[in-house]
């Protein structure tokens, strides 16, 4: 069962959403790749709903975007079939 780490970045100045997402993905990469952690980014920055998935998918992660309560949640994890393959 993986732990979910939440980051509320709503209202923040551009481009701190993308910078923070990249920083946290890198910081938790070992746990993400082992499947012990999932990240959820809360943002109201519309641009980041395109730029974060683009960047993070290029790094091999999986991203799901959902809209809830007037803002966006970006769920980031590592594909199950690739977990445990090392950082």
């Amino acid at each position, binding site marked *: 069962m993986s732990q979910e780490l939440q980051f509320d970045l709503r209202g923040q*100045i551009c481009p701190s959403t993308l910078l923070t997402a990249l920083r946290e993905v890198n910081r938790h990469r070992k746990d993400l790749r082992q499947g012990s952690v999932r990240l959820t980014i809360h943002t109201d920055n*519309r641009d980041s709903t395109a730029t974060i998935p683009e960047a993070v998918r290029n790094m091999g992660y999986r991203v799901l975007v959902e*809209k809830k309560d007037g803002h966006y949640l970006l769920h980031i994890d590592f594909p199950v079939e690739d977990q445990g393959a090392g950082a």
Partner: protein
Amino acid sequence: MAGSWEIIIFCGTLVLGLMAGWVMHRSDFCLASAFRDLFLFRSAFMLRQIVLAVLVGMVLFEALRLCGLIAELPFPMMGPASWTHLLGGILFGCGMVLAGGCVFGTLYKAGSGSATGLTAIGGIVLGCLVYGWIHPWWQPLRERLTWSLSWDIPGALGASALLFKAITAVFLLVMVLYWSQRGTMHREAHAQGYLQPRHAALALGAIGALSVLLVGMPLGLTTAYTKVGAWLVTLAVPHPAQMPDYFSAVAMDYRTLLGGVPLTGGPTPHWDGISLVQYPLILGVFFGSALSAQRLGEWHFRWRLPANQYFLALTGGVMMGLASRLAPGCNVWHVLGGLPILAIGSILFTTGLFPGAWFGARLLNRLLG
């Protein structure tokens, strides 16, 4: 009492602003990100959209000129190139990166509820009004640094404007088509009601042309911000004679082609031609974005943010405001207004945006990263 053409100009510009605000919000189309992301994230995606917007402007402005629907070029308040355009561009480029958006970017973000966007606007007004005291020594310097060439590239080369613009437009079109074919003009999107930036670029190019048709000038805001700054100075200064001379300058004096409306004005605290053209544009962009956000259920005002972000927004705003007076002009004025008519001053300003954005991105990485 306003004549009917003044009312048409006010309402028409308001509608153009509403459309621009809506489009920019839906697409999150900010020129600042175009230059910033090149250095911060090694992404040229938004820069490609800017190329498209410039191409659209170039074609439409030239079409208007050939149809006799532009009184004269360069546009009012655009003059010969000066090295101050380059210096202003560098300062502006850094400021817009720190502020999280350019002059139009911070406005549409403020409209959708961004507290840092509002803060940046406050900074822009402050930067514009500070220039009032700098003007006496900057203006002679600007004149000394003015190029003796024609204001535009075809004029400087003694070439046909139509032929030069046609060749440039074909070159830009080939680039856009090449990028389209490679799929690099499209972005996978997840935001509700998302407008692809390339469609926003087409729309903004067309809105700029409609502005030229209606009022004889492309989109611009910063002189209006300076007027707000001047008005604030009148509240603090006991006697009008103590106001810096800059705040009584006349920046433009011409007649529109449609309706023959005399438009005279400058960075004064009073209502004038600048107010008629730029105030409704500011209101339109702000409320166009607000309406777009509200329709999506995305309008929220969140102000509990890290203090350093307010500091960045304010500092970046002051830099943009000051740069817009030093150059003069802002990024939208030069990139979407001056570049399409191959104004050398606008080319210098745009060139300056690159090192400015590079420096701003380095600072931003240290402060936000």
